[in-house]
């Protein structure tokens, strides 16, 4: 089958906007846990109607939270396409539901949300690659690669002194949305083992295309931001 996100793109572009908001929920599923809903979704070949209802129920519970994150925390990244990204995340979750494993059912809701955010992150990376005008082809094992880097990121980030982190946060507040987005987008790829942000070519091209930058001007701009940040932190850390 071809990529579900491509199909979702087509539909989202072609669908006629629905006027007004109707909040739907399925009373029979209201007491089900989130990981339980994903289980219904996974059994879509056995009971498609129940699977669809479960996905709608999951969407009605969490789409606003995810949309809120896109708007409040990554508005520069998602802009007006935030709701489309959220919807595409749920489409993808519907087709990939059988791959979800809940490691801790006592914390099922947060486990499901973390899974949904991982799906959204992969959709975001794919969209960056698409903007780079190259075929969207996720290398085998990429998810594992990302997890490995993220684990190293966590360990290294936890060693940063609190004062330095606070100064960096203050510095980020001084930046234009575009400059902050450049740092944020590239920070997703920071590999502590290599000491730098290792961005794959397709994604880097996508970032450049979005901001009208060449690869060298992206590098220069990021370096200037880094130098400014270092100076700011040096001046503002006690």
């Amino acid at each position, binding site marked *: 089958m071809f990529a579900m996100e491509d199909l979702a793109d087509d539909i989202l572009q072609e669908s006629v906007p629905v006027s007004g908001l109707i909040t739907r929920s399925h009373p029979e599923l209201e007491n089900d846990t989130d990981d339980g809903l994903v289980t219904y979704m996974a059994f879509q070949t056995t009971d498609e109607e129940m699977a669809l209802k479960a996905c709608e129920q999951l969407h009605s519970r969490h789409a606003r939270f995810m949309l809120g994150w896109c708007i409040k925390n990554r508005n520069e990244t998602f802009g007006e396409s935030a709701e489309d990204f959220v919807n595409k995340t749920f489409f993808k979750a519907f087709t990939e539901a059988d791959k979800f494993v809940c490691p801790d059912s006592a914390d099922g809701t947060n486990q499901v949300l973390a899974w949904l955010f991982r799906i959204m992150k992969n959709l975001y990376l794919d969209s960056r690659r698409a903007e780079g005008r190259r075929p969207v082809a996720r290398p085998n094992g990429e998810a594992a690669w990302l997890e490995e880097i993220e684990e190293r990121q966590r360990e290294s980030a936890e060693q940063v002194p609190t004062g330095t982190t606070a100064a960096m946060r203050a510095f980020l507040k001084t930046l234009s949305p575009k400059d902050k987005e450049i*740092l944020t987008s590239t920070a997703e790829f920071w590999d502590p083992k290599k000491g730098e942000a290792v961005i794959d070519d397709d994604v880097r091209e996508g970032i450049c295309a979005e901001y009208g930058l060449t690869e060298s001007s992206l590098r220069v701009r990021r370096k200037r931001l880094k130098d400014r940040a270092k100076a700011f932190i040096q001046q503002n850390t006690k």
Partner: protein
Amino acid sequence: MEHMKTHNREQPKELSDAEFEAALHAALRDEGSLFPRNAEDVASLKASMDMNDVPTPDTQKFRQLLRQVAKNDGVPTNDPQNIRQLFRRTAEKIVNIFDTDWSGSSEVDANLEKLAMAARNGGEITDEIRKRMEVDRAQAKEQIKKNNGAH
């Protein structure tokens, strides 16, 4: 002189590149700007995120789209443009797997079946669309020939 002494005592060392990256990551993670990747991140985001002014997503629209995705694999077959797109994708897939037994590919078969369904359901294929489909088909054949020749 006094100023210099104070300056030297209080001025911390400049961050190295690695320390900068670690601090940037820590700051972005703290403020929730990086994609949350586990339940712990999600819990912390929930506690800190201000949901005021966040619009309610249109669940009715989502419901319609989800059912369309589930029913047709996302390609409405009553729109000639979509039919052409479906054909183009099918042709591309055939090219991509030219050296395998594509005739048994469930993906290609499914797409061809959808094209047939579109025709049966009365999805009108205009002359213009048909011409474009023929061009796509010719290009796909040409590509297969070219690739076979290269082997």
